[in-house]
């Protein structure tokens, strides 16, 4: 089963053949690729001294030469993005932690912009020759007289929304192995459980950005995630489900309380499936549970409000700024400043400070999510949404943590308002076509609503709707806002970035429920 993928379907699948084979042909073990290293020896630029930066091997003079080469054809802007990322993953099967994965990813991306056009190249070697070659390739986007970069560059001060430094590499493998063993034992306490599989992942990404405007910033971004899947058997019937969580935080994210929740939620979500029936087909009222129902916002609204699609006029929200697109009690924000969340970020990947951006305020559409190129196109300030998967990719407008603020209604009143409908509780993935506005999301767990009460559980049902129409059809919003902690990864133009979702209980008057019975 595909997990936690949020995608847009507008672009042709440009996964090249080699990438496809990499994805399909890895003889490795884990769905989550990752790694770990306790010393910086594996990098091209080893630390010069204890406590030194890996970027110390990139002297100002070298950076100046690369910037000069990048602007040698008259680019109006350029930036260099150096990244070193250490990853560790552990896999559990049959109650043993029987596989590990480690990776040190190191490289630099060079971007040159000229009249809204982008030249981009990256290298996995940080020697001068490779960097200059990349700069020359990126410079091919322009064809004029050289322009100049501002020097020296001044480092931006960043806020603090998550811990930095050797957040995970300073933690020995034993507690990580212990975490998986403890959770395995907890899930297996339920006698009907026949299989448990788990993967653990942590990473430390160290970023150094420098641009032709004389700006630079460094950031260290931790990330961890955990996935548990369980299969239970009752009277010869098998059911499985999974639970995942993630944070831009340290290993203390896995608190005793969270560990209890991981085990209990994995079991609850799996065991309820034995009582679940197929969902109905056709248009019904929908009540969204608080938390991960924010997937509705991400698909129905968020992607369509990314400004690259406004620049090309391909989103259904083109020309809708300032218009009412939802009832008065609907306010939706995209926020990179919430401490410890998966989608939070101190600065975006082109050096703009992160912010809380109000997309829809009391039902009025206020702004698109901008990167540098779209902001310049529209003559606006960037909103800190220029993000990229890694140094291998150029930044494009992306969401961070996207959520709807609490509304005026009591969750019990919302449920009571529905005579016959669907209650959607957990989700695995979604997708949207941003021009037509059609979006889907896949409900893994839910319930039928009968006479204002939850009745029979349902499972495995896709919902399909149209973004603008769904917004208009939001009838009630609860006062029980909940931020989700799922390991959501958003895919767009071949790049995956971590994002967060949040939602209060919310009612939609009518939407197509894609069930298999009348």
């Amino acid at each position, binding site marked *: *089963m595909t997990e936690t993928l949020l995608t847009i379907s*507008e672009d*042709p699948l*440009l996964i*090249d053949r*080699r990438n496809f*084979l990499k994805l399909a042909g890895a*003889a*490795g*073990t884990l769905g989550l690729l990752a790694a770990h290293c*306790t010393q910086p*020896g594996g*990098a*091209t630029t080893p630390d010069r001294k204890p406590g030194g930066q890996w970027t110390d091997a990139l002297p100002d003079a070298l950076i100046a030469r690369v910037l000069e080469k990048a602007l040698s054809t008259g680019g109006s802007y350029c930036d260099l993005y150096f990244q070193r990322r250490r990853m*560790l993953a552990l896999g559990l*099967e*049959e109650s*043993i932690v*029987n*596989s*590990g994965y*480690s*990776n040190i*990813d190191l490289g630099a991306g060079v971007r040159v912009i000229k009249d809204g056009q*982008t*030249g*981009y*190249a*990256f290298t*996995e*070697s940080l020697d001068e020759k490779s960097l200059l070659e990349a700069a020359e390739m990126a410079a*091919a986007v322009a064809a004029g007289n050289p322009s100049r970069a501002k020097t020296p560059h001044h480092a931006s001060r960043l806020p603090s929304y998550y811990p930095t430094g050797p957040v995970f590499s300073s933690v020995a*493998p034993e507690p990580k192995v212990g975490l998986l063993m403890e959770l395995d034992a907890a899930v297996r306490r339920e006698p009907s459980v026949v*299989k448990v*599989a788990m993967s653990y992942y942590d990473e430390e990404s160290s970023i150094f950005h420098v641009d032709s405007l004389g700006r630079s910033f460094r950031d260290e971004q931790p990330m961890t995630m955990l996935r548990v*899947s369980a299969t239970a058997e009752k009277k010869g019937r*098998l059911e*499985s489900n999974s639970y995942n969580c993630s944070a831009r935080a340290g290993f203390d994210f896995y608190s005793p309380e969270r560990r209890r929740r991981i085990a209990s939620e994995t079991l609850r979500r799996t065991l309820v499936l034995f009582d679940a029936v197929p969902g109905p*087909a*056709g248009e019904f009222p929908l009540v969204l549970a608080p938390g991960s129902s924010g997937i509705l916002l991400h698909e129905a609204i968020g992607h369509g409000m990314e400004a690259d699609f406004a620049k*090309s006029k*391909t*989103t*259904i929200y083109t020309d809708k700024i300032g218009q009412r697109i939802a009832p008065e009690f609907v306010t939706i924000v995209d926020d990179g400043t919430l401490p410890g969340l998966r989608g939070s970020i101190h600065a975006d990947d082109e050096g703009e400070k992160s912010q809380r951006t109000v997309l829809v305020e009391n039902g009025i559409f206020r702004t698109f999510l901008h990167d540098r190129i779209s902001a310049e196109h529209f003559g606006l300030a960037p909103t800190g949404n220029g993000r990229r998967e890694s140094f291998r990719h*150029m930044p494009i407008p992306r969401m961070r943590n996207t959520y709807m603020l609490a509304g005026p209604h009591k969750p019990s009143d919302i449920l009571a308002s529905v005579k016959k409908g669907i209650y959607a509780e957990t989700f695995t993935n*979604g*997708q949207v076509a941003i*021009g*037509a506005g*059609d*979006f*889907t999301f*896949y409900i893994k767990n839910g319930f039928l609503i009968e006479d204002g009460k939850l009745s029979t559980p349902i499972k495995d049902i*896709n919902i*399909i709707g*149209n973004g603008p129409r769904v917004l208009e059809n939001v009838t009630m919003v609860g006062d029980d806002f909940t931020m989700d902690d799922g390991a959501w990864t958003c895919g767009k133009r071949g790049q995956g970035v971590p994002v967060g979702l949040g939602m209060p209980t919310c009612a939609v008057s009518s939407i*197509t429920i*894609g*069930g*298999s019975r009348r």
Partner: protein
Amino acid sequence: MSTPECSSLTSIADDILSLARKGKAGACAVRVGSTTSRKVVHRDGQWEELQGSTTLGATVRLFVDGRYAVHRTSDLRPESLAAFLTEAIGLTRQVMPDEHRKLPEPSLYAPKTPPALELADPAVSQLTLERRKQAALAAFTACRDKLGDKGISVAATFADSRSLGCIAHSDGFASSLEDTSCTISATAAVMDPGGGRPSDWAYSSACHLADLVDPAKIGAHAAERALRAIGAKKIDTGSYELLVENRACGQLLSGLLNPLFGSAIFNKQSWAADLAGLPVAASILTITDDPLVVRGLGSRTYDGEGLGARRLPVFDQGVLRGFYIDTYYGSRLGRAATTGSPSNLVVTPGASDFPQLLSRVKRGLWINRFIGGNNNGTTGDFSMGLGGFLVENGRIVHPVIELNLSANHKTFWHQLAAVGSDVLVNSSVRTPSLLFAPILVAGK
């Protein structure tokens, strides 16, 4: 392959093997690969992206004291490799022993002289930026011209890559592979008077430059597809025949194949685990996993763990025959390893071309794409959004939106009524269009 580039990769792999031996790793499998990629994207009169890169990295699978871990690095300088191996071996010792983690059975390895599959085209390496731009511009121009004043935005992409890979194991196995690929694509967005901005795309992809479709044809085709998406309507919930376009079939087929993987079977998340030898689909369905297709986009001489390329019958006249089993899950399940990863999925074509299939549809849907959705590998349930057209008496009536199909793979594939002859060659999923008997579709 014996180019200087390849021998430099091979010597890195040998260095890693020797370091692993010195570090007392029981066994070691190394893959070293290098990929050069280029991409140009033209949108609405501008070069939206010009991209290029060369990557070089090694993946090292280590077996130490009965323990197993995989490590990757892109820093292949000799002075860095020793530290990398020391650390990798140290980390491998931190996981728990598992007797099922081992190198493949030597008799399954790829042969010394692998078959010639023509996967690399020297012409791809000789492409210039100007040639790439010309191809993208030709697709863009043809698309824009065809759209006329209904067009909102057109983007055309030309992308190509060349990869060299070598594999070497501590038991003496070694092999290498070179391949290239190139793709031309166009995406068109149009204005629907009803308010939407539908879009569609077309593409051609191949290992050899000469096998690519003319960029202008791709551009024009993208435009035709986008234009015909104007005027989409919702339709009633009801029973419809489904004619699935060849290029959309991959998503449907993936749900049929997922339960055939060793990991799914071992973790009891496979509805097909016990169905070997039984009919799972109508007898007109035959699917072979064929890594040996000449110039095939999913072709290869060895898989990720060095298993030699062999044709794997997956479904034979509807009967389930083959599973994707790697060495680890083969050992866990007590079965022979086949391969852990698909190559080319070849669906044996039927006799009817697309117009003949369409003419058979009385009241149905021509499905061009699936939107989102997912499969439950344990139970076979699946649910996916649908995009396409309403078809009545063999004629396309209008585009449809907000439709969804929910069914179960265990019964759905018995509904297969016809297999077309229009095989998709642009993809590693080499399938024709598929026609299914009436099934409930959720609409308004």
